[in-house]
């Protein structure tokens, strides 16, 4: 149990995907203008991440490894993620139209979110067990949402700030991300206990 909690905290805070591994930066910079839409995208991504970790773990350890097909890893993973996102989109549309309306536009964006593929690659590199992989997916999603929402909050206020002209847009967003990354470094001590 302790191991699982550690994996969760590491994935969501101390080794935050966005702020320490630079995964999922595209939506981080592109979408995070408003808090509402950030929460929507965050929840959709968390869901896909958890499921993607589960599915790719099973495929990797029960199909690719036993049949010696590890060199197909990247191709398989990306196909799994892409088809999974489509599947989720279809199911949500059938089951809950209101939820689809809220999340729908974000779903296609998720396929090209490097955080998802990154998650599955890290999972294999670190030899996570099945349970650890699932928790890792969940934690990474929560961490992604957290970073996205904080960023959106700052950017909503940034409208009132006088940013030097050349830095407007991407420039200032990156610099703020840098400061957030420094702030998150401060959490590094939690695990050492």
């Amino acid at each position, binding site marked *: 149990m302790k191991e699982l909690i550690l994996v969760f905290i590491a994935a969501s805070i101390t*080794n935050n995907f966005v702020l320490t591994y630079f995964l999922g930066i595209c939506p981080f910079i592109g979408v995070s203008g408003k808090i509402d839409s950030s929460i929507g995208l965050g929840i959709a991504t968390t869901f896909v991440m958890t499921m993607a970790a589960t599915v790719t773990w099973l495929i990797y350890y029960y199909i690719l490894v036993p049949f010696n097909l590890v*060199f*197909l890893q990247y*191709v398989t993973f990306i196909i799994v993620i892409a088809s999974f996102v489509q599947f989720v989109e279809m199911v949500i549309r059938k089951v809950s139209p209101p939820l689809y309306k809220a999340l729908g536009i974000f779903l296609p964006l998720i396929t090209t979110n490097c955080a998802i593929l990154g998650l599955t690659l*890290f999972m294999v*590199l*670190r030899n996570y067990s099945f349970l650890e992989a699932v928790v890792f997916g969940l934690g990474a999603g929560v961490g992604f949402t957290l970073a996205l929402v904080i960023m959106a909050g700052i950017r909503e206020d940034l409208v009132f700030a006088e940013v030097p002209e050349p830095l407007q847009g991407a420039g200032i967003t990156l610099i703020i991300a840098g400061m957030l990354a420094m702030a998150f470094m401060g959490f590094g001590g939690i*695990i050492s206990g």
Partner: protein
Amino acid sequence: MADNVFKKAWGNDIFRIIVSLAIVGSASGMALVFVYNYASPKISINIKHETEKAIRNIFPGTEKVGKTSEKGVYKAESGKGELLGYAFVAEGNGYQGIIRLIAGVDPAITEMKGMEVLESSETPGLGAEIANPPFRNQFSGLKLDHAIEYVKNQKPQEDYQIEAITGATISSRAVVNILNKRIDEVRKLIKAKQ
């Protein structure tokens, strides 16, 4: 005739999708088999070279690196065939990910001869210092009649202690734990054989 049937079928969306996906998929598979066959022998040679280089660094004068019956445990031998010691690969979790290292002990497993980090994803400038000489060299000559320990912000007092890197205690502790665990295992393996 066959041509016509194909043309007609090509008009059908589903058919087109299936055929084109199948072609792209199998082309990709074949290309990768080819790449894999070209690269995998070279990759295993690279890994072997890396291991042997690390062992030579730990045991200067090593002429031959021999395998033992146990995977990941090697014998370092001098030119005259004299056993210099055992080297073994050990891995475990660090601060950010897996740390994989190789360590060497004398034939009687009473003293450490050294260690080298093969792979780590620790923070550059802090945890990643475990791979650099100031930290690494502390391990050569450690006595193994006691589990290895680390001390913080002071010079080691005992001959089984090392000083942890300031600001990277977790990485330092991870190395110590990985080593202690693996040394015990290797000791049992080698005792069992003798």
